[in-house]
C-alpha cells in the first residue's frame, strides 16, 4: 500500500490506483469531466490537472499512477491557472444557453465555471456553431454546441452496453458525437444512461425535454419493478414547496423522470430504459372506486363485504401479486396464515420485442418481488394455480390474472390499482395503491432487499394492501 501525500497530507492508496482514485477515496476533490469510475480512462478533458511538488508543470490525475512517496498538489497556483484555462477552452465554443437547457442546475460545467473560472469570456471570436438539435435516437436528443467531446457516452456504448452505437465523427473543433448510421442506439436498452453521464446538457431525454427545471424537483429513492433485478432508482417529482396550483396540478403527482440511484450491490450506476419509463406503468388510468358487482360502494362497505365472503368460504384460494412488497405479502400471511390455498402469480410477462436477459442488468422475470414471495410462501406457491373442484372464493391481487381460468361459481374478490374491465365483474372490487404511493421493500433475484419510499399521497378512496390485510386480520380474529 503506497503512501502518497495530497496537499501535504499523508494518504494510504491502493497499489493499482490512480491519483484521482486515491484522492476521491480519501476526501480530496479533483474536478473531472471525462473521467468516470466505471469507464476506461480517456484523459481528454484536461480539467483534472494536479502538480507534482517540485515540478514546474501540471499533469492529469486520472491517468497518474500512485507511487510511493508521491507528493501532489490539487490546488496550487499553477493548477488553478491551468484549470481556469481549461474552463476557458471548454466554454470557448459552448453556447452558455443555460436558460433553455434542461441540465441547468445539475450541470458539471456550470458548477465548475463557478468553482474554477467565474470570469466573463476572454474571447472576441464568434462561436463555432454546430447542430443544435440532433435526433440521436427515438429517446435522446443531442445538442452538439453544448457537447464538450468528453467521450463518456461513446465509451459507455462500447464498454458497458456494448452496442457500439456511438462515435465521434470528423475531427478538430468540428468533431461531432454521432450514432452509427444503422442507428443501433434505438436498439440499446441501456441508451439513456448516456444522458445521466453526460457532464453537460448535450444529451437530453426527449420525454423530459423542457418539462421541468430540475430545481423544482426532488428525488425519492425507489426500486424499479421492471424485472427481478430491482435496480435502485430515484423517482423525480415536483417538490412540495413548488406545488403548482393554477397551472396543471396533475404535475404535482406525476413522475417527472426516473434516474439510477447508484447501488453497487444491485445495479452500479446504471439502469435500463424500462426503468426510465415507470410513468408508463404507474400513470395508466387508475381505479379509485370500490365496487360490488360493478356497483360503486364506499371503501368500508367493500371491505365488510370481503370479510363476509372470507368468513363464509370453505375452500378459498388466493392469487397474490409478485408486485406486492415484502411488507404487504407478510401482512397477508400474518392475516390469513393457512386460511387460503395461496399462489403467487406473475403480474407481468415480457412484452414482445423486450430483451429477456443479458449479462449486465436485465433479468428474465419481469416482476420485482418473486424472490420475496418465494421466501414467505415457498417455491410451490409459484406453480400454476391448481383450483380444487369446490373452490368457492378466489382473492385476486394485482394484474396478470386470466379470469376465464377461475373456477366457475367461485366468488371473486379483486384488488387492483388500474382501470380494467374485470374490475366490474368481481363480486367485490377494491382499488389499491401503487408503489409510488407507499413505502416497502422488494427482495431481488440474488436475495438483496431494497426499499422504496413514498412519492405521492394515495387517494382516500384507494386502499393500501398492507393496511387492508391487517384490517381484515383484526376482524377475523375478533370474529373467531
Amino acid at each position, binding site marked *: 500500500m503506497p503512501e502518497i501525500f495530497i496537499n501535504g497530507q499523508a494518504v494510504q492508496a491502493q497499489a493499482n490506483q490512480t491519483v484521482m482514485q486515491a484522492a476521491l477515496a480519501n476526501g480530496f476533490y479533483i474536478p473531472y469531466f471525462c473521467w468516470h469510475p466505471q469507464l476506461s480512462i480517456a484523459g*481528454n478533458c*484536461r480539467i483534472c490537472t494536479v502538480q507534482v511538488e517540485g515540478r514546474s508543470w501540471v499533469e492529469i490525475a486520472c491517468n497518474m499512477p500512485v507511487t510511493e512517496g508521491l507528493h501532489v498538489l490539487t490546488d496550487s497556483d499553477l493548477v488553478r491557472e491551468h484549470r481556469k*484555462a481549461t474552463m476557458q*477552452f*471548454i466554454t470557448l465554443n459552448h453556447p452558455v444557453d443555460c436558460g433553455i437547457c434542461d441540465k441547468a442546475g445539475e450541470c458539471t460545467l456550470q458548477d465548475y465555471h463557478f468553482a474554477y473560472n467565474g470570469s466573463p469570456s*476572454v474571447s472576441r471570436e*464568434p462561436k463555432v456553431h454546430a447542430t443544435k438539435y440532433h435526433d440521436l435516437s427515438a429517446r435522446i436528443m443531442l445538442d452538439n454546441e453544448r457537447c464538450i*467531446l468528453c467521450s463518456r457516452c461513446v465509451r459507455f456504448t462500447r464498454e458497458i452496453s456494448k452496442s457500439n452505437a456511438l462515435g465521434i465523427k*470528423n475531427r*478538430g473543433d468540428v468533431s461531432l458525437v454521432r450514432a452509427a448510421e444503422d442507428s443501433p442506439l434505438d436498439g440499446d436498452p441501456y441508451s439513456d444512461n448516456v444522458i445521466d453521464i453526460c457532464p453537460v446538457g448535450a444529451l437530453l431525454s426527449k420525454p423530459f425535454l423542457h418539462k421541468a427545471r430540475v430545481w423544482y424537483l426532488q428525488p425519492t429513492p425507489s426500486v424499479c419493478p421492471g424485472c427481478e433485478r430491482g435496480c435502485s432508482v430515484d423517482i423525480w417529482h415536483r417538490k412540495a414547496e413548488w406545488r403548482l396550483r393554477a397551472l396543471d396540478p396533475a404535475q404535482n403527482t406525476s413522475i417527472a423522470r426516473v434516474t439510477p440511484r447508484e447501488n453497487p450491490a444491485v445495479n452500479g450506476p446504471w439502469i435500463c430504459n424500462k426503468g426510465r419509463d415507470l410513468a408508463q406503468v404507474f400513470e395508466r388510468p387508475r381505479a379509485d372506486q370500490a365496487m360490488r358487482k360493478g356497483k360503486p360502494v364506499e371503501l368500508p362497505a367493500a371491505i365488510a363485504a370481503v370479510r363476509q365472503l372470507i368468513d363464509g368460504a370453505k375452500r378459498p384460494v388466493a392469487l397474490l401479486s409478485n408486485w406486492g412488497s415484502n411488507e404487504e405479502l407478510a401482512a397477508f400471511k400474518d392475516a390469513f396464515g393457512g386460511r387460503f390455498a395461496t399462489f403467487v402469480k406473475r403480474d407481468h410477462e415480457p412484452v414482445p420485442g423486450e430483451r429477456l436477459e443479458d449479462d449486465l442488468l436485465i433479468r428474465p422475470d419481469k416482476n420485482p418481488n418473486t424472490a420475496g414471495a418465494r421466501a414467505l410462501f415457498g417455491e410451490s406457491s409459484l406453480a400454476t394455480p391448481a383450483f380444487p373442484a369446490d373452490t368457492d372464493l378466489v382473492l385476486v391481487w394485482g394484474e396478470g390474472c386470466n379470469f376465464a381460468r377461475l373456477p366457475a361459481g367461485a366468488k371473486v374478490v379483486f384488488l387492483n390499482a388500474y382501470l380494467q374491465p374485470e374490475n366490474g365483474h368481481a363480486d367485490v372490487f377494491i382499488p389499491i395503491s401503487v408503489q409510488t404511493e407507499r413505502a416497502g421493500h422488494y427482495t431481488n433475484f440474488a436475495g438483496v432487499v431494497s426499499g422504496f419510499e413514498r412519492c405521492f399521497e394515495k387517494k382516500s378512496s384507494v386502499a393500501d394492501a398492507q393496511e387492508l390485510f391487517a384490517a381484515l386480520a383484526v376482524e377475523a380474529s375478533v370474529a373467531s
Partner: protein
Amino acid sequence: MPGTQLLMTFPVTATSHTLADYVARDGYATLRRALATMKPEEITREVTASGLLGHGGAAFPAGRKWGVVHLNDHQPHYLCANADEGEPGTFKDRWILEHAPHLLLESMLLASYALQVRNAFVYIRGEFDLPYRRLAAAVEEAYAAGYFGANIMGSEFSCDVVIYRGAGSYVCGEASGLLSSIEGKRGYPRNRPPRLTVQGLFKRPTVVNNVETLANIAGIVARGADAYKKVGTAKCPGTQLVSISGHIAKPGVYEVEYGYPMAKFLFEDCGGMLPGMKLKCIVPGGISTKVLTAAEVAPLTFDHQSFAAAGSSLGSGGMIAIAEGTCMVRLLQVMLRFYHHESCGQCTPCREGMGWMHRIIDRIVAGQGQPEDIDSLVRISRLQDGMTICGMGDAAGYATIGILDKYRGEFEHWIREKRSLLEGNLEGAVHA
C-alpha cells in the same frame, strides 16, 4: 558535402533503389552475419553504445527506447517504422523510401531480430505515391529473395512486414496516433503511461522508430558502435538528414554530420539564398520549432546542443529558409491554419485552442486586430504547452511564440495600421 556521409553513400541512379544494386553494395550481408553470429541482445547493446538518436524530432536515444522491451516475455512485440512524414518542411524520409528502401528493410529486420519482433510495419503517409511504390516493390523483392517470411536465411528468425498507408492525418505521425491508425481507427494519440514499449499496438510492447533512425541500424551493426561514434560530436553522434526548402538556392535533402558549421551548410552546400534574396530567418526543424534569425543561426554548429542553446531545436531536420521581405504575420497565419486543420479534436486545449488562435490571426489579417491579440496568442500558446495528449499543443505554441518573440513589430504594425508591413508577401523580396 556537409561532412561524413553514412546514408547517402552511393550515387542515385535509375536502379540504385533496387535489390540487385543494394546487394551489389553489400546489402543484406549485415543481416546474414548478424543472424549467424549475433544474439538479439548484442544488437541492442551495439545500438545503445552507438548513442544513435531518434530522428523523428525528439532526439530520444534509440537504444534507451529499445531497452524497455523485455525479451522472452511470452508475448508478441511489434516494430513500426514511422514514415508518416508530415511535419511541414520535412521530406527527408522520402529520400530513404525512394532511394534506399532496402537499407530501411534490412535495418528493420535487424531491429526485429534484436527485439524479437515477428511482425513489423511501415506506416507511410497516404499521399506519398512514389515512395510507397518504391517501398512496396522493395518489400516484394525482399520476400522473393527470402529476406522476409519464415526462417530467414535458414535461421530460426522469422519476420513479416506490412506497409500500412495512412489516409491524411498529421497526428498519425505521433507514435501513439500512428498505432491507433494501424489498429484501423481514427488517429487519436494516447495518454502516457503506459509507454508504447510497454503497451503499444493492440496493447503489446511496440517500438516505433522514425525511418531515418532505423535506416542507421544496418550501418551501426555492420561497422560497430565505435565507428558510428567517430562521426559527429560527443553528444550527438552520427549524422542527420536535413530537408531544406524555402527561399534557398538548392533545396533538397542533405546528410549533415553533427557539428558541421551552419553558415557553411546554408551558404555553401545549399548555395545560399535564391538570387537577390537575403536570409531573414530560418525554421530549423519543422514548423513546430522556434524560428532563428539570420544572425542567430549563422554562428551555430549543426547539433542539438548548439540549437538548444539558441532557444530552438533541430527537430525533424525540416529547415525552411525565409528571405527578407517575407511577412511573418501571414507566415504564422499559414502555420496556425495548418495546426487548426490537423487537430484531431480529442483533447480540450488543442481542439479549442488551435481554432481560437487561427481565428485570432485571421482577424488580425482582416484588419480587425486588437492590441491585446498578441498577448492572447502568447497566452493560449503557453497554456496549451504540455497540456495536450500528444505534443501538438506544445508544437503550435513553439511556432507561435518563436515568431511573436522575434517579429512582434510586424504584428503590431498590422493591428495598428490594418495592413501588412510587408504587403502580406510570402515569396520574399529580391534586392537589386
